[in-house]
């Protein structure tokens, strides 16, 4: 019974214990067995049928999907980084170029003990503590499956030594990389800028340009200066190599190759010789100089002192040098011509004179009497003139030549600040110059509206006072301009009122086709002033250097120059007399000088700012003289610069 329910092998049969012969039915057994075998056969057919269905699914239905996967398995697209364009000065002197060198790189994710590996590598090649520090810094900023440079610019011998020992260091690679070299070092560093490793912010920028594909494989990008502003010209087009790789990522063969095309070469309007003359003239002093060709807007020299060595930034600056630059009170990383905003001091006077002539507030002949101070309404606050006892009778010409403050106090007291604002903004004050170097500040050209919008807690802070106008009238008060703005205004006057957009790039040359794209001079506008008024102001500026505050610095020039001194207060004196010797060096006044030459047909207009240089005539004008001499005469005239800190001369005491 039980057996019957358990097994179907047979039917009725006897039992051995009864000794009976077994009654069996082989035919039936065979039938039952074969039926089971038939089921097994059906099972086999179903199984193979299922397999076949699976194969159809994989090889027909999903074939395209799997073919794509197989291709992405085997085909690696390797970017070929293009050569970055060369930067030269206007005469073709190389300022920045790329060269190929071997680097020792580590992929942290493939190395178990990074420090130990570096120690072992240090036995083979020279690895300085600064290399380690720099590597640590790069490591912190990167994802650890990236290959990061430990040592750059390996010598041939070092490459050979590493190559032999390669097997000992999984995760180590020797790679040929393109490097950037700036042969002039600190000279013009703020203009040229530098490149550095691409960071997350740069990636966002690249994504915004929709250039992400083109930067695959690129490690560096322009960070500062023209390297930044002309990044897209200089970078070039990345090439692509399709290689077949095995599962270990090793390239087996090249399938196709689209070569990269080098970036365009950039020729600057900068004259590196002139730049060197200017930077040498500064010596150890801090400051800025911008020289512009007034007829084109070409920037001839762009000085920010002190500078920095851009070569240090290329591989990622090491922390020691970074600290040195970043924490120095001299702020070597500050781009002073564009990002330094200073009160213009007396350099504003010729522009205010032109404003007064244009508006009709003054005629050249009108005179005032200067008692040595200006007092509002008779009994109010006294604004001092620089010259004790005053300049006596002063007309407009004399007001510029001797830089008479009282003349401008009076003028300011009679002029609405918004009218002044309107006129001066035409000259570019308080506006971005749109120069082709990034990061410039707007500066402040005060107006009622500006002061109202300014954050102030009390109503009084937002209201315009006559006193504000009077301070602004001699280039102090709220005025704060960048050296670039003053240079541009000077160039505009020198060019008889026609303003050009300042630019440092002269032409872009396609290295492949040789095709040259010149950056055309861009006249932006002509200021609303009568030619005879401009001529009058220009004549007075010539007078400054002939018989006024600039005469001493420009004594004996073989060509006619025009200029204006300026002194910007850093520290507000409360009624006391300014005494440079008593004041801390960093609180001393900033010295300004604006100039152009030759006076009849200006080829160069410039601005010099010497931070804490004291009087403009004393420290800034001699620098201007050297630069003008070199540019106009083609050589420097010896012995013309007065030494810094020389005793004040009575003749140029007024400023």
């Amino acid at each position: 019974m039980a057996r019957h329910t358990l097994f179907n092998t047979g039917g009725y049969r006897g039992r051995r214990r009864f000794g009976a012969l077994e009654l069996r039915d082989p035919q039936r057994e065979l039938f039952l067995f074969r039926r089971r075998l038939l089921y097994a056969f059906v099972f086999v057919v179903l199984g193979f049928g299922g397999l076949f269905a699976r194969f159809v699914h994989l090889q027909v239905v999903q074939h395209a999907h799997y073919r794509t996967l197989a291709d992405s398995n085997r085909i690696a697209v390797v970017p070929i980084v293009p050569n970055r364009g060369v930067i030269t000065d206007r005469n073709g002197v190389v300022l920045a170029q790329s060269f190929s060198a071997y680097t020792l790189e580590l992929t942290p994710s493939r190395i178990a003990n990074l420090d130990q590996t570096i120690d072992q590598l240090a036995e083979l090649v020279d690895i300085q503590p600064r290399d380690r520090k720099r590597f640590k810094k790069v490591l912190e900023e990167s994802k650890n499956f990236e290959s990061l440079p430990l040592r750059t610019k390996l010598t041939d011998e070092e490459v050979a030594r590493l190559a032999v020992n390669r097997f000992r260091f999984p995760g180590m690679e020797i790679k040929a990389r393109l490097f950037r070299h700036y042969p002039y070092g600190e000279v013009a560093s703020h203009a040229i800028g530098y490149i550095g490793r691409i960071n997350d912010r740069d990636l966002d920028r690249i994504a915004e340009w929709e250039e992400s594909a083109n930067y695959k494989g690129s490690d560096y990008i322009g960070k500062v200066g023209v390297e930044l502003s002309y990044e897209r010209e200089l970078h070039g087009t990345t090439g692509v190599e399709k290689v077949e790789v095995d599962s270990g990522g090793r390239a087996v063969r090249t399938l196709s190759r689209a070569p990269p095309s080098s970036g365009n070469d950039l020729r600057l309007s900068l004259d590196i010789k002139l730049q060197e003359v200017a930077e040498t003239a500064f010596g150890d002093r801090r400051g800025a100089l911008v020289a512009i060709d007034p007829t084109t807007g070409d920037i001839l020299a762009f000085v920010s002192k002190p500078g920095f060595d851009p070569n240090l930034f290329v591989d990622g600056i090491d922390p020691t040098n970074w600290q040195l630059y970043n924490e120095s009170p001299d702020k070597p990383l500050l781009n002073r011509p564009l990002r330094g905003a200073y009160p213009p001091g007396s350099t504003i006077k010729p522009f205010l004179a032109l404003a007064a002539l244009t508006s009709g507030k003054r005629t050249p002949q009108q005179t005032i009497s200067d008692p040595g101070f200006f007092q509002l309404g008779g009994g109010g606050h006294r604004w001092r003139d620089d010259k004790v006892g005053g300049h006596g009778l002063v007309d407009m010409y004399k007001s510029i030549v001797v830089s008479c403050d009282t003349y401008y106090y009076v003028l300011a007291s009679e002029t609405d600040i918004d009218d002044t604002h309107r006129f001066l903004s035409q000259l570019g004050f308080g506006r971005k110059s749109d120069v082709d170097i990034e990061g410039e500040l707007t500066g402040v050209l005060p107006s009622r509206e500006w002061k109202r919008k300014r954050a102030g807690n009390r109503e009084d802070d937002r209201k315009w006072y006559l006193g504000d106008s009077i301070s602004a009238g001699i280039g102090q008060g709220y005025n704060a301009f960048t050296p670039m703005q003053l240079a541009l205004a000077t160039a505009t006057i020198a060019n008889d009122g026609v303003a050009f957009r300042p630019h440092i790039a002269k032409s872009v040359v396609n290295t492949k086709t040789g095709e040259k794209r010149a950056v055309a001079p861009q006249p932006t506008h002509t200021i609303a002033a009568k030619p005879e008024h401009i001529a009058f102001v220009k004549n007075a500026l010539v007078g400054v250097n002939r018989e006024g505050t600039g005469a001493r610095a420009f004594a004996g020039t073989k060509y006619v120059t025009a200029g204006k001194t300026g002194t910007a207060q850093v520290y507000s004196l409360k009624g006391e007399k300014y005494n440079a010797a008593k004041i801390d060096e960093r609180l001393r006044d900033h010295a300004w000088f604006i100039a152009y030459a030759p006076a009849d047909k200006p080829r160069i207009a410039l601005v010099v700012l010497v931070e804490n240089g004291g009087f403009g005539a004393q420290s800034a004008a001699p620098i201007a003289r050297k630069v003008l001499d070199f540019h106009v005469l083609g050589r420097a005239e010896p012995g013309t610069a007065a030494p810094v800190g020389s005793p004040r001369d009575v003749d140029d005491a007024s400023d």
Partner: protein
Amino acid sequence: MNFTEVVGRVWEVLTRRIDSFLFGCALALFGVGLATLFSAADQSVARMSSQLMSFALALALMWILANIPPQTLARAAVPLYLVGVLLLVGVALFGVVVNGSRRWLNVGIARIQPSELMKIALPLMLAWYFQKFEGRINWKDFAVAAVLIALPVYLIKRQPDLGTALLIGASGFYVLFLAGLSWKIIAGMAAVGGAAGPFFWSQLHDYQRERILTFIDPSRDPLGAGYHSTQASIAIGSGGVIGKGWLNGTQTHLDFLPERHTDFIFAVFGEEFGLVGAALLLVLYMLLIGRALVITANASTLFARLLAGAVTLMLFTYAFVNMGMVSGLLPVVGVPLPLMSYGGTALVSIFIGLGVLMSVHAHRTLVKA
């Protein structure tokens, strides 16, 4: 006797017990396997000659087995089974651990894997048992058979080698099934098995669970356990209908396919010969198994029937499980593809099985029931 007669006599002795149809199918599959292996092993002559050496040994053993009458084999059943179980116990006590599993036993001259022996010994033992008690099999016999199956399965599962344990369990089940195990019992076992699923799940090792989970979703661990499965699917799928051509499989030759001359050789075949090749391969296996079923159906004794049936179904099971695993239909278990995968042991076992089938066929009329 002249020379021709001698040759004729020798030829007769050599081929007398050989079933030409079965042998032809096996030879064809081995030839296809050899060609695929040549591609998979990057045209390595060393692997080819090694595989051919195994083939020579396998042919010799096949011939010997084909010439041993089933009754003689039946006498070896009990000793073989006992030795197998003893060796498995030995493994559990003194086994060598390789790759985290205790599967090997060091017997001085070589390491052996007793679970391989059990693949033949268990069906032999069961067939002998049912033959011995033929015609009056009752529930007690079923219980004994269950114990005979459970003992080696348990020992092998403990090693741990779940895949082999299941395969050996399957070979035992095939014998029971062919012996006429009631459908009710089969359904009951399936129900109990299903209900006990969560319990078995809890009994599994972490890596075994991981393997099953990875099978369900290979993207769980695309570089680990899922890598084999994913790359094999890519290889087969990218082969398309006609394949990439012999020696042209990119997955194979660029080293993306793991285990490609052993367990995953079918992926190489599928990539290079496509759906057409895979279908032809299935037809070849179908012919081989079909012939083996015919032999089984015509076997003269219960022992011969059960043994031949179990061998046949195991042949199918290996082929099905391997191709199912490689094409992502089944979880990854270490089962070679019969006649195609590289490896002496597997090849020899298959030809021994074929020798058994040939013996059953050759001796069908000599012994009457």
